[in-house]
């Protein structure tokens, strides 16, 4: 049901945890839907230097969270803000149709973290 890339990111997730001294944190999802994603990041000179995730959710939720951290690291916040959930799913060679809505919120969590950073630093 899942692609090899999804299974790779699910079984060996990258960047799990919380960034120490994070200057932006975002959390999306809802327990009733079965997926909660939390992204913390460290931004310096508008560049995402470090990003980590914590996720409660299914295989797709964990894999997309892991993938979005890999995609975001080193990007400017403007570049990161145009990353879409669709792009994350594509980077994983796709998700099963049923997972496209509920378990594909990782880019949203990233955007929330960036918004939080901007709020703190405005």
């Amino acid at each position: 049901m899942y692609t090899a890339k999804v299974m790779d990111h699910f079984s060996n997730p990258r960047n799990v945890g919380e960034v120490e001294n994070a200057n932006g944190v975002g959390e999306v999802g809802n327990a009733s839907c079965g997926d909660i994603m939390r992204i913390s990041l460290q931004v310096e000179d508008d560049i995402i230097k470090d990003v980590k995730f914590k996720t409660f959710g299914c295989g797709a939720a964990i894999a997309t969270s892991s993938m979005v951290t890999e995609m975001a690291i080193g990007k400017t916040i403007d570049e990161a803000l145009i990353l879409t959930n669709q792009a994350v799913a594509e980077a994983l060679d796709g998700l099963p149709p049923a997972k496209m809505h509920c378990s594909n919120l990782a880019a949203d969590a990233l955007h929330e973290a960036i918004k939080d950073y901007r709020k703190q630093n405005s």
Partner: protein
Amino acid sequence: MKKIYMDNNATTAVKPEVLEAMLPYFCEQFGNPSSVHWAGRMVGGAIEKAREQVARLFNCSAAEVIFNSCGSEGDNHAIKGTADALKHKGNHIITTSVEHPAVLETCEALEKDGFEVTYLKVDHNGMLDLAELEAAITDKTILISVMWANNETGNIFPIEEIGEIAKKHKVRFHTDAVQAAGKIAIDVRKVNVDMVVISGHKIGAPKGIGAMYLRRGTKISRFMHGGHQERNRRAGTHNVPSIVGLGAACDIALKNMDKDYAYVRHLRDKLEAGILSTISDVKLNGHPDANLRLPNTLNVSFNYIEGESLLLFFDMKGIAASSGSACTSGSLEPSHVMGAMGVDIVLAHSSTRFSLSADNTDEEIDYILQELPPIVQKLREMSPLYGRDNPTPLSCDECRMVTKACG
């Protein structure tokens, strides 16, 4: 890699003796039992032998057994067939909120046709209040449908007592015994029940075969129209090999039930005690008294982690189990059984069911108990809910688009 199968409430392997009994009925004894010639005559006896074998599991007479295609068909036939046959008497049906979808959705469909359905609540242990059941009966009640045992928790319902209530009020009583059959006695002479549904593939027969006990004299409308098979109660050419297989499986189940399920109970209890004593924040789903649950079923929630993730990690270790999480139920909501029991939503998503058989071993339990704690710990360390003081869910604007997903 080891392969450990603990999802026997989903389906079971066909028993070798069952397959052996079936094999002559494909190429050699292939006839249609309704035919008068030699080919038909060759198989007629096989159908009646299987009927006797199934009847012994129910402890009923062979004429009270109807072969069908599966548990869902049996439940549909029992409920819709009763609703149609008794609609002149009333339009009220009583069932429970924890039934299998084959019962729940059939009742929901009847509601659209003007029937009224009472869905009885269960308590946090998943049990019914029989006073509430009795109080729900009105002069319009034509059917009570309560499962013998629950597929998710293994809870065994007091079918004998419910049968007495049904008898006292002269209401027909149907039970879905798909999970109970072969694991505990389903003796229709001991309990007052009019219709009992079983499914072959849960007891070592193939998929696509089932049977219903229909008490002699119980009027029921036909579900499948066509030929005169099954004394005009169920049309369709007999699935001869599978009927033979179901008969053999019932025979073996009856013969081995006590021995097999004492052993399975030992394995289940060992798994249960091992999980509860080695992993923190685990909730047992179902009745705490193990005697009130099927001997093979264990349902536990590993707090802070979601069921599908857990199953995927289990799968990497060769362990096959199942979960009540939304992701694995094929819907957007976690298990309706967990919901009815008032299980916290996160715990419902993390509910995990191990359903054993006599093919499992002590070594397999030891292996699971060794592999499970690190998997749970790994997923918890990944979870934003773990270690949080107040794991209150956030709002979810996205999900509001999906009306059924979030209340």
